């Protein structure tokens, strides 16, 4: 692998506090040097010009569904990671709701095997309970040894107090976070969108915001009861103001609670469903405007640790159904950076450095991914190079994902990825 010298760019690396013109040298899959423009001299390098571009640590998505094993018609690890690379991501964490459920070290290793053809680094997140049935814990120690970076029953929330408490205790011992899809499914049976005015108008049963905040509060209560400073609860795709407030309170009380917000939850509200557009159907659902605004505020004030896409590909024939029958989920890897820049930076003036932190530095820290989300010397040579002012049209038909289920098709976004480098290899180059 030839060393790469990225020259002339504006380097933003929140982990090292750099936000200035810097050149970057990558050797053997690691960051070898970061220095002032024109300072790095090294023979036999491939030189990449990053003039007028931002050079940043590759993006990290702690919440994607790559659908393998079992549902290769929706996505494969190869196609999902190709989409991730095109979106500037160099690390994705794959959820365990595959077929079979990833509740074993074998499946965890299978997902990381070179035969899967991943373009970038995939870290599996393993099931917290066997088969994600919410009854018996999986083997956290051996799952971690096989490469799992967290445990969750994503999509099938852990409702029982006793089993959730056991999961928190066992995960703390293995030094793994427990990720919870916070939805009290006892309140959401038959529901396909957010409860409220729009749901009533459309004649759809609505999920109350309490179904999310109630479970977050329950989890926080259990976390407090466990009284082990190593226990770490991570709230997946948080979408309501009440749940965010619960996270804030827990942190003030010294508990280790982190949370992620998906781009669609800070960009869209429930009105985006329009006339039953299934590409605006996901779980948690698009919420009311006040919740969307709360997500933006939480991101700006630092209450939100990271942006995660919840990339959830589905085949066209699955989404082209009656709204209530269509599966939940939208793709998100290729629109995340553009949406974040367009909404958070352009509209809300959040500095680009904060956006990089939310999409790279902080998600890597939340899941303890050492050497990721940073361009400090010795870190993985994971780099995204993007044009922060370039406007482009996001077209689902051009997506590298197998599935095209996105509500952002045709949107004009600002901030375009021009190159993605994973462990020293160029894995995406805008043509």
């Amino acid at each position: 692998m030839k060393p790469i010298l990225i020259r002339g760019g504006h380097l933003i690396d929140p982990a090292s506090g750099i936000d200035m013109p810097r050149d970057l040298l990558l050797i053997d899959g690691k960051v070898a040097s970061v220095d002032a423009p024109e300072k790095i001299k090294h023979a036999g390098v491939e030189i990449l010009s990053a003039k007028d571009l931002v050079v940043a640590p590759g993006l990290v998505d702690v919440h994607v569904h790559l659908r393998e094993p079992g549902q290769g018609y929706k996505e494969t690890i190869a196609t999902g990671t190709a989409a991730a690379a095109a979106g500037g991501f160099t690390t994705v964490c794959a959820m365990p709701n595959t077929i079979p459920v990833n509740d074993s070290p074998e499946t965890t290793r299978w997902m990381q095997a070179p035969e899967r053809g991943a373009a970038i680094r995939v870290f599996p997140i393993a099931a917290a309970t066997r088969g994600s049935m919410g009854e018996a814990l999986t083997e956290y120690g051996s799952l971690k040894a096989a490469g799992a970076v967290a445990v969750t029953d994503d999509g099938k929330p852990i409702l029982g107090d006793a089993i959730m408490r056991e999961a928190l205790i066992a995960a703390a011992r293995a030094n793994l976070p427990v990720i919870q899809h916070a939805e009290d499914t006892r309140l959401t049976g038959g529901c396909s969108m957010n409860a409220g005015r729009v749901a009533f108008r459309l004649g759809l049963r609505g999920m109350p915001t309490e179904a999310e905040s109630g479970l977050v509060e329950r989890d926080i209560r259990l976390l407090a009861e466990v009284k082990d400073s190593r226990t770490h609860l991570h709230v997946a795709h948080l979408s309501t103001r009440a749940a965010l407030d619960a996270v804030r309170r827990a942190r003030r009380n010294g508990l280790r609670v982190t949370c992620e917000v998906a781009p669609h939850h800070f960009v869209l509200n429930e009105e985006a469903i329009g006339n039953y557009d299934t590409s605006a159907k996901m779980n948690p659902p698009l919420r009311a405007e006040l919740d969307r605004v709360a997500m933006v505020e939480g991101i700006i004030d630092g209450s939100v640790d990271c942006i995660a896409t919840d990339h959830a590909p589905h085949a066209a024939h699955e989404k082209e159904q009656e709204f209530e029958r269509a599966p939940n989920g939208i793709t998100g890897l290729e629109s995340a950076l553009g949406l974040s820049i367009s909404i958070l930076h352009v509209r809300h003036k959040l500095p680009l450095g904060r956006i990089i932190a939310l999409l790279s530095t902080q998600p890597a820290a939340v899941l303890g991914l050492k050497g990721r989300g940073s361009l400090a010397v010795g870190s993985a040579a994971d780099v995204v190079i993007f044009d922060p002012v370039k406007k482009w049209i996001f077209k689902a038909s051009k997506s590298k994902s197998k599935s095209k289920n996105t509500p952002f098709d045709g949107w004009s976004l600002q901030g375009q990825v021009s190159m993605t480098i994973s462990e020293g290899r160029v894995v995406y180059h805008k043509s």
Partner: protein
Amino acid sequence: MPAEMSAKTQRRKSLTPQIQSTTISLIHPDSILSVTDLTIDDLQSILDLANLLEKEDPLTRDRRLFKRRVSLLFYESSTRTRTSFELAAKALGADTSLVSAQSSSIEKGESLRDTGITLRALGAECIILRSPYSGAPYLLAETTGLPILNAGDGMHEHPSQALLDLRTILAHLKTGLKITETTLKGVTITICGDIFHSRVARSNALLLPRLGARVVLCGPSPLLPEVAAELGPNIVIERDFDRALAQSQVVMMLRIQAERLAGLALDLEEYKARYQANSERISTHAPKALVMHPGPMIRGLEITSEVADGPQSAIADQVRNGVAIRMALIMRALSSDVPRHAKARKGTSL
């Protein structure tokens, strides 16, 4: 950030407030999926056409859509709606074919989309859809491009019912033939019962205020959440049925959908005591009001036989008006010269 980059960012931002796309709708403009699709002019022309067709010599009327093909696609059971759509199509000379869930490939798992495409390939020029899923007509309209008439979708809407109810109300109130935004000014209409599950309630509550009416929704909170008042303008909630009746010229009773009550804390005896349309209550609080019911009725629950069959009842008129209105809707759907894909809709705004 370099200063020049920031300046560039600023400039671009001010030039581009909108980032979402505009999509072109494939929905045929003569589809009726929601009463909100209809302008006042549309309402006028539908009611005028219903009058004309109803009075027309059946032998002349029979030539209007002679041998044109209308499909009835019914995923739910229906007596009134299905029969009246069918009679209406036949009265215009059209050929009808009925596809129902129990006796078709729907049972084998064929999707709504594929069923629609199949019907179109078989020559259907218009599909009348009844579905247990809210919004299903939008999917069928988008995938077939055909005019779709919504014959009731889930808990969403039942537009032809609201139109026949409107015709019934206008005839009773003798408002004349002209439809304006004030035709029903000063008229209060109470809709009582299971509003939450009712597509009839939604269509009527969205339609009648457009002509100046005031709609009072009445029922216990499990069946009538507060958010119902936000459906549109001129809709209020009054939980006391007697008080609602006292202000109303028209009262619509809705069926208690017993099959949907599982899990709701509802005592039927208490319900009857508070919300049943019985002779005593009607004669005390609304002795002149028109009493309506979209059917099917559960006699002795939401309405007593004395009221349903009494002098104030318009229930049989509603059924009769159904055929006239549905003739107009089918006529309109099949005589359009508007090109397909003519309507554009905007994406939702942020």
